[in-house]
């Protein structure tokens, strides 16, 4: 009886190891390739997918909370000014249209790398209202040092509620 249990346990462990290997080596890549949601084509960002220009900026996340979508490209971030409410977790999704760029939120320890052909996602919470500069922090070409965006954190009661299909930025008009 004891031997049977040990045998069963050994098989279970072995099967689990096989399955988890399979999951990460086969299922996840398949999921990404066939699902396609996380691998936007850098040259057709403006034609289809979640990074079309009308979808950039902060919006309501259908699963709750806020979501910010951004494009980094030589040599401007779009949008160039992001406005977010303070004290609320905000999900950032960012991709690049050409080279590798990096957003570095000066004054915080937050940063995000923008990679062509991939989406970088992170959830940040900015506790206090204020303004942060976001320079590009990865050399991307001769205009790199002038590539900057800006983050405006406003108190939550100063952030008017968003419509479900509204995208907000604080870009100059």
């Amino acid at each position, binding site marked *: 009886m004891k031997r049977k249990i040990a045998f069963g346990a050994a098989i279970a462990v072995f099967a689990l190891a096989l399955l988890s290997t399979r999951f990460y080596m086969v299922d996840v890549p398949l999921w990404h390739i066939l699902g396609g949601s*996380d691998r936007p084509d850098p040259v057709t960002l403006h034609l289809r997918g979640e990074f079309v220009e009308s979808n950039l900026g902060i919006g309501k996340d259908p699963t709750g909370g806020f979501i910010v979508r951004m494009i980094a490209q030589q040599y401007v971030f779009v949008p160039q000014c992001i406005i977010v409410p303070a004290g609320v977790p905000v999900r950032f999704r960012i991709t690049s249209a050409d080279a590798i760029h990096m957003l570095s939120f000066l004054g915080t320890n937050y940063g995000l790398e923008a990679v062509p052909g991939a989406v970088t996602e992170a959830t940040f919470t900015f506790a206090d209202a204020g303004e942060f500069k976001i320079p590009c922090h990865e050399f991307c070409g001769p205009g790199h040092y002038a590539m900057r965006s800006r983050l405006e954190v406003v108190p939550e009661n100063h952030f008017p509620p968003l419509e*479900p299909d509204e995208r907000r930025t604080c870009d100059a008009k």
Partner: protein
Amino acid sequence: MTQNKGSLALRIDGRFRAFAALLFAVTFLAAGTDLPGQRGTTEPPVRIPTNVAWTQDTLAIISNGDAFRGLLIARRCNHCHGEEGFSAIATVPNLAGIDRFSFWKQMEDFKSGKRVSAIMQEIAGRDSARDAADLALYYSMLPTGSDMQDKRSFPQAMQNPMRASLAIELILFGDGRRGIPPCQACHGPVGSVRGAPSLARQNGDYLLEQLDHFANGDRANDMNVRMRSIARQLTGEEKEALAHYYGAGLGPDVSAW
């Protein structure tokens, strides 16, 4: 004992097969759907700035132009854009030595109505993608030196030469505090970005008009809001300084290197 072992192995085998089949089925079903929560059901109406994308197919069409065929087609462009690709009217762009990728993109955008122009939409609508590629190659090959026999408005002296330093600063360094990159990083000569034409021999009045259109959104056919982001942050003085500095033939040029 041996019988027991055999039946156990059989049972495992049968179950394993069923389990494996189920796993594969689940994998392919899951792969066909998106990860939950990554695409909102509530998205604003999609705005597409231009139908052109720099895919390999597009680059192949543009790269396979025929300059002689372009020369023949270009006869109907001569009236406004000049026989040598330099326009006599300052608000009409010069085409001599133009970057052929950006030329082709503008023709496609006129055709699809993404860039609005009463005259050019009518004319470009008659040309196929191949015609545009031929024209692009022809104009990109035209010489850009001066010719005293030709009527051309380029170059025009700056009306306000005191503003030259403002233009030089923006062309060479941009303004990092506002996130304005230097013009020369994309429009040459130090860097180039696909679709960004050289401005070194462009008419000043035309450039000023386009900067204004980018700034107020009348022209919105740039991919990923690139030029609009920059132009809407420039002051009127800066736009004028930049346009007329380039229009005076002072802008940095690849051939000067």
